[in-house]
């Protein structure tokens, strides 16, 4: 097991404490995975194994869930996660173009990470902020009415 992904006692206690909110241990799976992903940026298989043990479920029960939900990642991702909203409202306001612009600028395709591991580019189906289209989410923070110029600035800021 990769030492880096061994969950420490404190984290384990936090994950176990989640089960108090639900009447089955399994129900704490999504919150637990969210915590893990917030910590590591993705969900390493080692962590999946340990969560399975903590919640007393089969490893497959973890894996079927991590692969089902589009915002869980099983492989390392870039330091900055950029989501471009690709719903119809954003697209008719230029969301699609933004995506191409970013892809070109970062020299990656959608769902890929730049070679230096800095950026991962994703497109996401509706972020629920259609009134300020086009929207991108960078590391969890919403950016509204985004233009290519704004992206240039943002990327420089993020380095």
């Amino acid at each position, binding site marked *: 097991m990769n030492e880096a992904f061994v969950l420490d006692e404190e984290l384990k206690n936090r994950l176990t404490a989640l089960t108090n909110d639900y009447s089955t241990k399994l129900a704490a799976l*999504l*919150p637990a995975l969210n915590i893990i992903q917030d910590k590591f940026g993705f969900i390493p298989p080692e962590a999946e194994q340990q969560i399975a043990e903590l919640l007393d479920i089969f490893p497959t029960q973890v894996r079927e869930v991590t692969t*089902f939900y589009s915002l869980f990642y099983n492989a390392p991702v870039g330091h900055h996660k950029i989501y471009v909203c*690709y719903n*119809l409202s954003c697209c008719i306001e230029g969301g699609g173009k933004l995506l191409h612009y970013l892809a070109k600028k970062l020299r990656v395709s959608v769902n890929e990470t730049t070679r230096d591991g800095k950026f991962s580019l994703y497109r996401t189906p509706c972020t*629920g902020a*259609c009134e300020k289209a086009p929207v991108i989410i960078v590391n969890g923070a919403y950016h509204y009415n985004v233009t290519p110029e704004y992206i240039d600035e943002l990327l420089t800021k993020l380095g």
Partner: protein
Amino acid sequence: MAKEPIRILTKNWDIKNSNTIEAYIKNGGYKALEKAIKQMNPEQVMDEVKKSNLRGRGGAGFPAGVKWGFVPKDSDKLKYLCVNADEGEPGTFKDRYIMTLDPHMLLEGIAITSYAVGISAAYIYIRNEYIESIAILKTAIQEAKAKNYLGASILGSNFNLEIYVHRGAGAYIAGEETGLIESLEGKRAMPRIRPPFPAAVGVFNCPTVVNNVETIACVPSIIEHGGEWFAGIGVSKDGGTKLYAVSGHVNNPGVYELPVGTSLQKILYEHAGGIKGGELKAVIPGGISASVLAARECDIAMDCQSVAKAGSMLGSAGIIVMNNRVCMVEALFNIAEFYAEESCGQCTPCRSGSHWIKNILERILHGKGKTDDLEIMLSFIPGIMGRTICAFGDALCGPVQSFITKFRDEFEYHIIEGKCNIRNKLDIL
């Protein structure tokens, strides 16, 4: 002379620090909960809600009071409330406003609902991206608990309630009520077979009420002012105000609270500031799963029945406006791609159908369409619509059928000429 606009859900939004409990209480918050607990018994609360003609605001538009009534009263199992804050329907963004600007109205609604149905644990299933709303809600719950509006022995009564915030992980189908329940239980969000309905067997095999954020947020006002007052605001069998979320090609996109049944024209031109960047071409009235309305069909009232009569649905009332520079083939492809990505994969027609519709549209877009492609896509409709476990299949069919039939010439041009016929076309993909 315009009447003073009725504000129920948005009444606190302009106040400074509207998401704090102090601001909420100062503006009369938690009075309704107090009234319910101290002056009414659960049946009376439920009756008021039934009287209000409050319909589910999530998309299906099922009368909320009736839904609560389905929960068996004699069951010795725990009962649960799941608040659907997944808001995954593209074009919808109203719940985010409620949760960030007035979380206590939602919490008060949850408390009253739970009191009426006999619930002691409620989950707010919120989509992964709403980190801000999650933090605000969690703070609000702590605040309300400190003031004994939540927790044990609420306001000195024997009514207890815990509210938990449950963060999703990116699945449109988790917004479907049984998909939400599965997801809450820590599984793949694959919708369940009904019967049994959640009211009988829901989360953790217990009776469960699933309601949208907006629906629940209406409840405090109903209790405060009475069901009849609420019913009087809307149209017959569809009471109250509605948050219309307008996006796309309008000058002032945003959320507008208007009485149910306000005309679409009024929403677009009076409130949203009219069409931007060209002429009106089409409107999707209730999130992308609603059938598209061509410009000439836009003279309708925005309530469940009127929109249904026009061949579409009110859905979540997420109104997407498109001007005449939008290519309908591209727009439908965007929608089809969404459905192909979000189908859970359980039912054949939906899984395979969404995949084929996307593929066929893709080849039309690339100028490789075949003459019978439109017929093939339309032939999917009777095989998918109403033939799947959940309403996802219907949601997929609505746009496909309406886009193709209403804008057939555009699709045919693409197939025959291999290119688009729109001048100054907006590149949307």
